[in-house]
């Protein structure tokens, strides 16, 4: 049994004067995570903040690129029935559509990869599971981006 008197709120002994007055409406409680000289320096940087910002910026651009792509491929001039090698050759004859498709490929793949990274972090509870799933994700992402880029730049309408 302690002989020290404590207040009901557990703040500590009250010796005469009240902890609360006009200038001190509530006692100051030291921050449990106060930064001191002993606090280790963060090694993580602002990666997650830039990731968050990238999702929003790329998202706005992708709305234009992808909805434009859907309009051309699925709605105009007979929709999907017109799509074929000749149609692709016609589109990629123009640098405008090459750049459009290249931007769409890179932004969509990076946007999707970062989204899936978040999903993996949320649901894969074991560190080894996260490692393998993210390894698979990054491999597939790099492969898809490189393959798509190569196809756009090396497309040959007279391939035969």
């Amino acid at each position, binding site marked *: 049994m302690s002989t020290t008197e404590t207040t009901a709120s557990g703040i500590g002994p009250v010796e005469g004067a009240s902890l609360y007055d006009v200038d001190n409406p509530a006692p100051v409680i030291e921050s449990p995570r106060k930064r001191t000289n002993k606090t280790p320096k963060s090694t993580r940087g602002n990666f997650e903040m830039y990731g968050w910002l990238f999702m*929003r910026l790329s*998202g*706005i651009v*992708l*709305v234009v690129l*992808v*909805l434009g792509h*859907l309009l051309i491929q*699925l*709605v105009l001039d*007979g*929709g*999907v*029935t017109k*799509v*074929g*090698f*000749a149609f*692709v050759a016609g589109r990629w004859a123009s640098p405008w559509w090459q750049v459009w498709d290249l931007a769409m*490929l890179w932004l*969509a*793949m990076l946007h*999707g*990869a970062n*989204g*899936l990274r978040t*999903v993996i972090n*949320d*649901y894969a*509870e074991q560190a080894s599971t996260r490692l393998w799933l993210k390894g698979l994700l990054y491999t*597939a992402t790099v492969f*898809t981006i490189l*393959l*798509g880029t*190569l*196809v756009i730049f*090396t*497309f*040959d309408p007279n*391939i*035969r």
Partner: protein
Amino acid sequence: MPAGTLYRGREGMWSWVAHRVTGVLIFFFLFVHVLDTALVRVSPEAYDKVVATYKSPIVAVLEYGLVAAILFHALNGLRVIAVDFWSKGPRYQKQMLWTVVGIWVVLMLGAIYPVLGHAAREVFGS
């Protein structure tokens, strides 16, 4: 599910769930779509053969589902940006979700003929 997770339900949670599900679906489609387009580097015949399967009625229905996922993800993504960057965004998040759903329904009705029309002509004859 991780233990101790408290979901609050309603518009905020369900739009978040739908955004995740549609996002994952679109990513997997994108992976396949880059692979099929890469066939233009193999031969015109290989590409046209695969694209021909995309013109079948069953794939047309899947395509309509893909359009549904992309349109929701795009519109709700704009709503998420508004919630994050517009000072009154969080207060109007529910109204914005129902606006998103309204625009989505209109666009999906508009997509019926362009996306499913050729499939209907094939199935029912024209």
